[in-house]
């Protein structure tokens, strides 16, 4: 084949592709576990979907189904979306894992993107956000704002994702003030405002004055405001709930990734590799930093964020010590992603024993 022919073919293919794109937009669908208006997890995913619509306009056509329970309903909804000609389906909750894999087998031409899971397939891609990064930055702020050197954490379930956030929060605080310790209360639920509030009351009653939570409601933050303590928002910017108590919010940012997925698919080279993104990829952030914070604190947080973004600092780089003071990660070393994903130990400064 001559160069000339190649060129013509290439241009022709491009023209065809763009013509096809102009005729039929890329159909993308999202499956949400909660209502779009939950102000947290699902809300953040829907912001991502809207970002895709805004950036790619007529090149894409998006739909979503909200409040889909993790169970038999999920499989039915995912199957339905695939059958309706969506080329990309995002299933945005851990509990959709098996349903996604099952449907993916029947629709080899559709690419499924599953958030926070751990099982992939040729057309099932996993993506997740490193929430321990904003948790570490929150820790730095907490380290400056605590008067009693005692932090509190309202934790959902003792799984690596939560345990590493507790460690990151504590390590961030101790990077400022090594006398700080963190008390943890497990509530064994993702969402129960009543229990979250009681847990926060307990921690504050025990002398903790800056709280972080890994649960979905804003109850911890509101309790902190009522009791004159500080706290953070989680999953979405929760400033409005408690303007005085709110120090900052750790949030996931999915828009950038969703746009990348869409653009790659439009270019005919769909993303097929697992993505575990963080601040360098723009997949999470610490937002709504309280304007009343001292300037040096704001600057320190911004500097550390810049280091994380530039890849110069990793939260789980050594030296990291265990509760008994023994070295877990030596200076100059860092945990691998696999190790971070299976953390089942408390770092130095966390009080109590990890439930098993």
């Amino acid at each position, binding site marked *: 084949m001559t160069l000339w022919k190649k060129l013509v073919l290439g241009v022709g293919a491009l023209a065809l592709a763009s013509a096809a794109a102009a005729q039929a937009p890329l159909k993308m669908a999202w499956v949400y576990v909660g*209502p779009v208006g*939950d102000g947290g997890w699902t809300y953040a995913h829907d912001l991502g979907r809207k970002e895709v619509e805004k950036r790619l306009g007529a090149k894409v056509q998006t739909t979503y189904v909200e409040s889909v329970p993790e169970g038999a309903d999920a499989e039915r909804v995912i199957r339905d979306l695939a059958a309706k000609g969506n080329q990309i389906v995002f299933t945005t909750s851990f509990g959709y894992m098996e349903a996604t894999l099952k449907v993916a087998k029947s629709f080899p031409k559709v690419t499924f993107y599953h958030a926070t899971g751990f099982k992939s397939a040729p057309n099932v891609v996993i993506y997740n956000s490193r929430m321990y990064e904003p948790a570490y930055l929150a820790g730095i702020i907490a380290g400056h704002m605590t008067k009693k050197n005692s932090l509190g954490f309202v934790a959902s379930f003792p799984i690596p994702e939560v345990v590493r956030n507790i460690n990151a929060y504590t390590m961030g605080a101790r990077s400022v003030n090594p006398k700080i310790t963190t008390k943890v209360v497990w509530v064994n639920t993702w969402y129960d*405002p*009543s229990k979250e509030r*009681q847990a926060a009351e*307990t921690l504050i*009653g*025990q002398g903790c004055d800056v709280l972080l939570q890994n649960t979905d*409601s804003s109850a911890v933050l509101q309790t902190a405001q009522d009791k004159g303590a500080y706290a953070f928002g989680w999953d979405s910017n929760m400033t409005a709930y408690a303007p005085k108590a709110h120090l900052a919010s750790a949030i996931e940012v999915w828009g950038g990734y969703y746009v990348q997925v869409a653009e790659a698919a439009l270019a005919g080279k769909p993303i097929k590799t697992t993505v575990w993104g963080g601040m360098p990829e723009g997949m999470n952030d610490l937002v709504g930093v309280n304007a009343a914070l001292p300037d040096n604190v704001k600057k320190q947080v911004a500097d550390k964020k810049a280091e994380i973004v530039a890849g110069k600092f990793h939260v789980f780089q050594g030296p990291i010590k265990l509760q008994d003071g023994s070295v877990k990660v030596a200076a100059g070393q860092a945990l691998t992603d696999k190790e971070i994903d299976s953390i089942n130990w408390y770092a130095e400064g966390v009080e109590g024993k990890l439930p098993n």
Partner: protein
Amino acid sequence: MDSINPLVASAVAAAIPLMLAALGELVTERSGVLNLGVEGMMLVGAVAAFAAVAHGGGLGAAVLAGVLAGALAALAFGVLTISLQASQVATGLALTILGTGISAFLGRGYVGSRAAASFEELPIPGLSALPLVGPFFSLTLLGYVAVALLAAITWFLFRTRGGLVVRTVGESPAVARSLGMRVSRIRYAATLFGGAMAGLAGCYYAVAQFKMWQEGLTSGNGWIALALVVFATWRPLRVAIGALLFGGVTALGLYLQTVGIHISAFALASLPYLATVAVLVATSSNQLALRRNAPASLGKPFFDGD
């Protein structure tokens, strides 16, 4: 010792809405009507109260809205079960599902905002500083009202003619009818009162305790309130004690974690339910007490031709 008062305060705060809803249901059940829709009525009351303050209505309007919304939901239940003789169990369950859905739908616009007005704690000087009992004197206005309602309901049920009428209807509607009592009307009144109290409990969650609206705000506490009524063998004071016990056991489970007593978190989480089962076993082992207090016609429809 200074960690005891926060623990008690946490228990008391959790107990108040449970007690409100359970007291309402107790009156309803005393008239022979079993309304399993407490959770749904609470949610409707909560969203109505939140909406009232969100639109500038103030706290009085919030209470009114919560109470009316709960009563309205109970009215729907009453029409179906008292007038149309539908199954109380099925209708009650339907009411819970309906209330959950409707409150989520109506509350969509309020997610993500703080309650525009809220009840704050009003400590009674001196008393609120006492060890152990201090938190009982540091309630919100709605909390004090709840305590007053406990006294009023106890007095009404056991010291007034009206209370006797309600209990007679619950015991034997046929006898009540033969004595000239309007069974349906009395049951309607008791059902509406139960709904109003559940609505008030929802209002407490929305504007006194959480000061926010999120879908499923009451997170299953309506069911706990229902269990409390049986737990208390249909006696108001025992409802209050049961609510405190439930709030206290949850608070204690969380408290133990922070002082380094290492019991499995899962075991701690099941403590309140274990306590409920234990007390239920204890109360039902005394069949006489149970039979003496349980309304004999509970859950049975009665047609009095009204």
